[in-house]
């Protein structure tokens, strides 16, 4: 079970990010999770939003280079060491993690970590085998009041 993440190329200029978030806000796109990877020249903004397909069309129409990527939304206990079981399962299964970041809000009692991995299907099976909970897009949206 994977979740669609939107990834957007942002030029490294003052005001570029503001302009982008304004565009989403004015069009009712809610950011449930957000991470920014940056270099000296550009950044890649990765986000989980309530309507990924609509968001993708919107940002492309406004001149952004973007795509949708499958990521895993992993629910883990919101306590020290909570992430370890999930990581151990993936390591044992030889899955590489490209990056991860966390959801802004908790879902129930759990923290949600977004994983981008090289083999999403295998990773999902491994996590299920280790009794780690994976969330659907819908579950995330509901927890965020949609």
């Amino acid at each position, binding site marked *: 079970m994977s979740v669609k*993440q939107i*990834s*957007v*190329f*942002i*030029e490294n200029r003052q005001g570029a990010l503001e302009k982008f978030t304004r565009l989403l806000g004015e069009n009712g796109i809610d950011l449930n999770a957000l991470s920014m*990877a*940056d*270099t000296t*020249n*550009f950044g*890649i903004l*990765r986000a989980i939003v309530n309507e990924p397909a609509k968001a993708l069309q919107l940002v*492309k129409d406004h*001149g*952004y*280079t*973007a*795509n949708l*990527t499958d990521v895993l939304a992993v629910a883990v206990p919101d306590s020290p060491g909570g992430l370890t079981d999930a990581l151990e399962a993936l390591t044992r299964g030889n899955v590489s993690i*490209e*990056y991860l970041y966390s959801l802004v809000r908790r879902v129930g009692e759990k923290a949600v970590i977004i994983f*981008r991995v090289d083999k999403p299907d295998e990773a999902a099976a491994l996590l299920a085998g280790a009794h780690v909970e994976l969330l659907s897009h819908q579950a995330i949206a509901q927890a965020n009041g949609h």
Partner: protein
Amino acid sequence: MYWNKPVETMEREALEKLQLERLQHTVRRVYQCVPFYRERMQAAGVEPGDIQSLSDIRKLPTTEKTDLRDNYPFGLFAAPQEEIVRIHASSGTTGKPIVAGYTAHDVSVWSEVVARCLGCAHISRDDTVQVSYGYGLFTGGLGLHYGVERMGAKAVPTSAGNTQRQLMLMEDLGSTAIACTPSYALMIGEALRDENFDLTRLKLKTGIFGAEPWTEKMRDEIQKLLNIKALDIYGLTETIGPGVAMECMEAQNGLHVWEDHFIIEIIDPDTGDEVPDGEMGELVITTISKEGMPTIRYRTHDLTAIIPEPCACGRTHRRIQRLRGRTDDMLIIRGVNVFPSQVEAAIVGIPGIAPRYLLVVDRVNNMDVLEVQVELAPELLSDEVRKLEELQRQVARAIEQVIGLGVNLRLMNPGSIERSEGKSRRVVDKRVL
């Protein structure tokens, strides 16, 4: 100081007679040996026998850089391959460079005209000339080098770059003259100033600068920083390299064109009509002694004007004004000619990017810096930074391989590069000369 007084001070009448003889010979040669020129002349309805006076040169079709590119690499050579002893290359307008072939005679003529240029700068056998132009396919380094050796002066082939080593050698070897681009001379001068270098430790007295446009303001600056006389040299690979024309120490005003080897015309770039002496127009050069690759009425796209008045130095070869600019979109960056279309040719077809780009040229600490902005395709290739950085490097490398210059590459969002009247603006030149 003359290198070749009889020729440099030849009466105009004799000089023009010599020009006509050499022009006729060259036209016959290319008509016989170069299909391109023969076909062009036939299409224009002109034969070698029609060239009866110097003004008949206007009957001949002009030649463009694109003609050199279309006949790459050897199509315009007028000498058999076994007679070619040297190849140089310069920027083309697309992915391929343009090449020039020289026979031993051409190299000798080139050395001769450069030696005359050195004479214009009052350089003699007693001098040590540091040649800080790049050595290689670029004509600057080897062109100056052979002229210095022809004169019997001492050449120090430091090539360009590594300013600290240049300064060390300049002091230790007692270089009395330097040849390089004016912007590099400025950079050396500022390095000296920043170190509070005592200029009396140097024996430098003259600089020969060319391969890029510069101004009187830059000349003043260089002369002050290095405590030398700075003189302008002109030339282009298509006609031979540096040494087509040179300023003299006496006037420091306008460059003498060695008219026994090159016929110059100034034309209106739009109509192709000749403009009167003293008026600005495009410089057109015909080589009249070259064997390897003569060029007939080559349109340089450089803007200048003929100075018809005699010069204080006594040379009878007419002068052209300091080059004022270009009629096309060619840029000169660190002495290297760059056409925006070369960048286009380099990046087209690379996945993940759109062939839309902008060149931003700036001068930072007297060093030209070229930033190339390239738009991404709307579909992001990867959301991994590593992969996008790889793309950035790939695009930069593709451009660098074609233009031969390092670039700072900047990936941009689609549509973010300004357009004017539906056409994209391709160059922003922020340099203040």
